[in-house]
């Protein structure tokens, strides 16, 4: 666990590190290398874990994207022949599952892991080893999910996996088993991570940073973690029920045994709707940092943005049945959920207005990060407004399960979430890697994504309102109509748009490669930013801050750089970011404790993954998994937080009983 000292300037408190055995469980020496692959695999550093989350998510963004392209290729013409019905059903199931569980959530986790401690002025998260465990469980889940492609076919029941279609008779391949276990294990990772981040936010903010002086990004992450803590257990239960039905003969969703298949739908959407906000709120947080920075103004109505985010989180738990308007809930339930769904549009609208008014009176710098943030506002507004049209439940019974819904949630999730994440990439790349992403390539990246995105998902509004249902591996001329609204034309436009979108994203990858090879070193404060992550070097040192900052303002970094001119009301620069960073280095804390790397998080994750595979391949493998989990859990628990000196190679200098992992000053 992290031991973060905050020595008072006058009377430093010196904690003695516990005198501990040098070997974890008395068997193996602790991993302490700071270079090479071991320094990544066994790390507990939130920054390295954040980067690994990001790499993992980006890989699966590409996988999910290829799946999407295959889907669009199949639907480009009537009676498509690229994919069989079976393969198509697997493809759309895995596209959604991959994008949600293996791209969107991990990418949000990447940002949260990397920037939360930095924005809070902390040296790591509260439970660094749990942090690593969360990452490796996610990796295990992702591998299990996608191993199904090579082990008899992927899941084919849709990401919502409605019973009874997900039962053993209707989905006989092992795909659904891999899906259930993969999502379950990835979910454990998220749950562990969320508790970790809640504790971090509540307990480890820098001195002076009250909750209402905390950056909005941290606020949104906090709301998201609470959503996860309360919603993930529900899907966990549902997945356990499904696993037992499929693998151990239980009958939770077997109608012949008297089960009600709507039980699954309620459980799934009580998780699934908050999940929507889990996906979008981190992006809201990112642009709530980007918009003020590039408008040179604080966020308009900070408390309104914070509380609207919190109320979106709260009301988000009360609207799940709007996914079920056609299931026959009865008019009273439908009316209640219809009204609740309209209510959630209000705090969402508040956010849009506040972002817009943040730019009002500003001095707008159209960097790529800012373009993506503005793109989010516009595209998310379209998605939000189409969302209001299906809050009207009777209207929704015409739209649900058509391409209109597909258009709606891609405007929200691609136009909203993905654009927010890309805004974050361009904004924080120099912080993480010390190099600037190319802005010119960034411009092309942005405009191709805007055009591709609107060409792909815009026509789906028309297709849906013309009655093209979702999740169909072919569409037919018999239902296509003629003239302007012919399915054929708009499906071709959408498929062409998906190619443009893919090229846009490819440009981002090219930009990354180009930057890594030839990018120019980033200045310490390239955007004239506002929050604490910029008050340290880029990339930050292992211990983040030489001196734990003391916070006096919202946007403290900005207020250390600028002072208001009393007569004109405009802001006058009093210091540069570089000067501030040098000042921190000159006044570094004397003793900085950081937790040591550990074998056990990844070992436990391997055990959990083995146990999962055992559910499909038999009890002996399950036993092996359980033994690995038990053994490594003991290792995890008995391991001291800091390794002994002699574990270091070369041993740490001075023979002191505290470690100074990085040269200070």
């Amino acid at each position: 666990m992290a031991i973060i000292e905050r020595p008072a300037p006058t009377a430093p408190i010196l904690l003695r590190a516990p005198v501990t055995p040098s070997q974890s469980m008395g068997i193996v020496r602790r991993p302490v290398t700071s270079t090479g692959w071991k320094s990544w695999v066994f790390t507990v550093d939130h920054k390295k874990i954040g980067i690994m989350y990001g790499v993992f998510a980006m890989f699966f963004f590409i996988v999910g994207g290829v799946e999407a392209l295959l889907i669009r290729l199949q639907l480009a013409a009537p009676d498509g022949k690229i994919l069989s019905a079976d393969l198509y059903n697997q493809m759309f199931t895995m596209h959604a599952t991959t994008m949600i569980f293996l791209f969107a959530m991990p990418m949000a986790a990447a940002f949260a892991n990397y920037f939360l401690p930095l924005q809070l002025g902390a040296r790591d998260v509260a439970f660094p080893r749990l942090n690593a465990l969360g990452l490796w469980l996610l990796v295990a889940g992702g591998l299990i999910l996608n191993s199904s492609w090579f082990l008899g076919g992927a899941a084919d029941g849709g990401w919502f996996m409605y019973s009874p279609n997900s039962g053993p008779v209707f989905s006989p391949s092992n795909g659904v088993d891999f899906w259930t276990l993969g999502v379950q294990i990835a979910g454990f990772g998220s749950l562990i991570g969320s508790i970790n981040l809640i504790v971090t936010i509540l307990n480890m903010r820098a001195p002076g940073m009250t909750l209402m002086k905390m950056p909005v990004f941290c606020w949104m992450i906090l709301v998201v973690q609470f959503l996860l803590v309360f919603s993930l257990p529900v899907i966990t239960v549902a997945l356990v029920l499904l696993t037992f039905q499929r693998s151990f003969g239980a009958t939770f969703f077997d109608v012949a045994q008297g089960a009600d298949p709507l039980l699954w739908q309620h459980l799934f959407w009580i998780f699934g709707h908050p999940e929507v906000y889990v996906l979008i709120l981190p992006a809201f947080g990112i642009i709530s940092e980007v918009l003020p920075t590039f408008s040179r103004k604080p966020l308009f109505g900070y408390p309104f943005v914070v509380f609207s985010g919190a109320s979106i989180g709260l009301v988000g738990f009360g609207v799940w049945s709007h996914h079920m308007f056609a299931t026959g809930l009865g008019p009273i339930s439908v009316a209640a959920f219809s009204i609740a769904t309209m209510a959630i549009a209000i705090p969402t609208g508040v956010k849009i207005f506040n972002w817009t008014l943040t730019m009002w009176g500003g001095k707008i710098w159209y960097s790529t990060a800012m373009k993506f943030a503005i793109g989010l506002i516009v595209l998310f507004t379209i998605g939000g407004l189409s969302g209001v049209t299906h809050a009207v439940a009777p209207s929704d019974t015409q739209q649900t399960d058509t391409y209109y819904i597909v258009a709606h949630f891609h405007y929200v999730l691609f136009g909203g979430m993905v654009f927010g994440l890309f805004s974050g990439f361009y904004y924080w790349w120099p912080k993480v890697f010390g190099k600037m992403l190319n802005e010119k390539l960034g411009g092309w990246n942005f405009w191709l994504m805007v055009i591709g995105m609107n060409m792909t998902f815009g026509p789906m509004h028309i297709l849906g309102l013309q009655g093209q249902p979702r999740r169909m591996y072919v569409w037919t001329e018999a239902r296509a109509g003629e003239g302007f609204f012919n399915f054929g034309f708009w499906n071709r436009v959408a498929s062409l748009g998906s190619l443009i979108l893919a090229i846009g994203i490819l440009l981002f990858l090219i930009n990354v490669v180009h930057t890594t090879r030839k990018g120019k070193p980033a200045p310490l404060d390239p955007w004239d930013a506002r929050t604490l992550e910029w008050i340290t070097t880029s990339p930050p040192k292992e211990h983040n801050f030489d001196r734990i900052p003391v916070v006096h303002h919202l946007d403290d970094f900005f207020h250390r750089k600028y002072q208001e001119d009393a007569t004109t009301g405009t802001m006058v620069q009093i210091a540069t970011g570089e000067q501030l960073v040098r000042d921190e280095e000159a006044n570094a804390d004397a003793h900085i404790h950081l937790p040591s790397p550990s074998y056990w998080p990844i070992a436990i994750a391997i055990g959990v993954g083995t146990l999962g595979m055992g559910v499909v391949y038999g009890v002996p493998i399950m036993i092996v998994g359980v033994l690995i989990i038990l053994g490594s859990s003991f290792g995890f628990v008995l391991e001291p937080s800091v390794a002994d000196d002699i574990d270091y190679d070369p041993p740490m200098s001075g023979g002191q009983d505290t470690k100074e992992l990085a040269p200070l000053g």
Partner: protein
Amino acid sequence: MPLRRIGLGLAASSAIFLAGCARNAPQDTWQPKGENAEKINTLQWMVFPLAGIVGVAVFALIAYILWRFRDRGQAIPHQSHGNPAVEITLTIIPALILSVVGVFTFKGIFELAQTNDTQMVINVTGQQWWWEYDYPAQVVNGVEITQPIITSGQLVIPTGTKVLLRETSRDVIHSYWIPALNGKKDAVPGRINLLRIQANKPGIFAGQCTEFCGLSHANMRMEAVALGPEDFAAWIANQQRNAESPAQATLAQEGEAVFLNQCIRCHQVNGLKKADGTAAIAAPDENVYSGAVPNLTHLMSRNTFAGAKFDLLTADCRKNVWSASPDEFGSAYLKGVTSDCLNQTNLRGWLRNAPAMKPMYADPTKLAVSDGKYRGMPNLGLSESDIDKLVAYLSTLK
């Protein structure tokens, strides 16, 4: 850039509006043909324009801001943290708009749920991957249905009549959707869901299963057919009739023998007798997982088969039915599938190898999980001469 944004906003909202004016897609959700769909359409015409107006207003504001406050070298502005009065106003305005929408939505939900003045009841049952319709004995508009009618694929209803569909499913969840007549309602196994439809004029209205229901979900279609009072009475009279055996020494009679040898295991033809004169009773429950297969007694009175995926009519004849005016529609539909209109390609292809035409779980070696029962029609390995005979026989099932 601001122009581009205005363009984007306009394009998106005008696309939504224009979608309402289309004439030609049979599942268009903006072309109501009956009372229930009209109620929904009224709500659509309220909320879509409202959303469009709000969208255009927001985009105009954003465009103005992006142009007005671009960096022109001005000083870094005063660090204002917001304006509570503006905030509260901008919270209240959307809340008021949504309250108005909410009131009408509320009214719409309860009106659409109304069932107490129903004039006719039909049981609608979904299974992989077709719909069965079961008309209980009842008196509809003075026409008496004396014994239950069982049909599939095409739902036939009288015009101007409030018809209550009682939906359920025999396997997984399906969803019944005829956009011109009403919104969707799921068919959930173990539950009965109610959906009221009504058609103003005679015509044929396309639909599609809209809850993902497994392998061939895309191929689970249906149509609703509305007939005027006299045509509907004629249809009822025909459906209550038993099938008659074909004349002696015809190809069709040989086809009947093939049917009795093969098809009767699952497919019922009312009135069909075995060689010994006893009634031939199909036993789909022994062979098919859902326990039901389409009743073929009046196959040729419908003009689609296999989950309404394939036409029994040739393209020209199909066009005559689909594009008939409301006045002529009834007679065009009641003609059924005449011999010159029969789509031989589809029907023969299906008899030759059904799973090749529609993905189904019909491979006898892979039925262990379903106790050896099929989900869909298997390849029967019929000879070409058997197929000739069967087509001749099936053509008599008017």
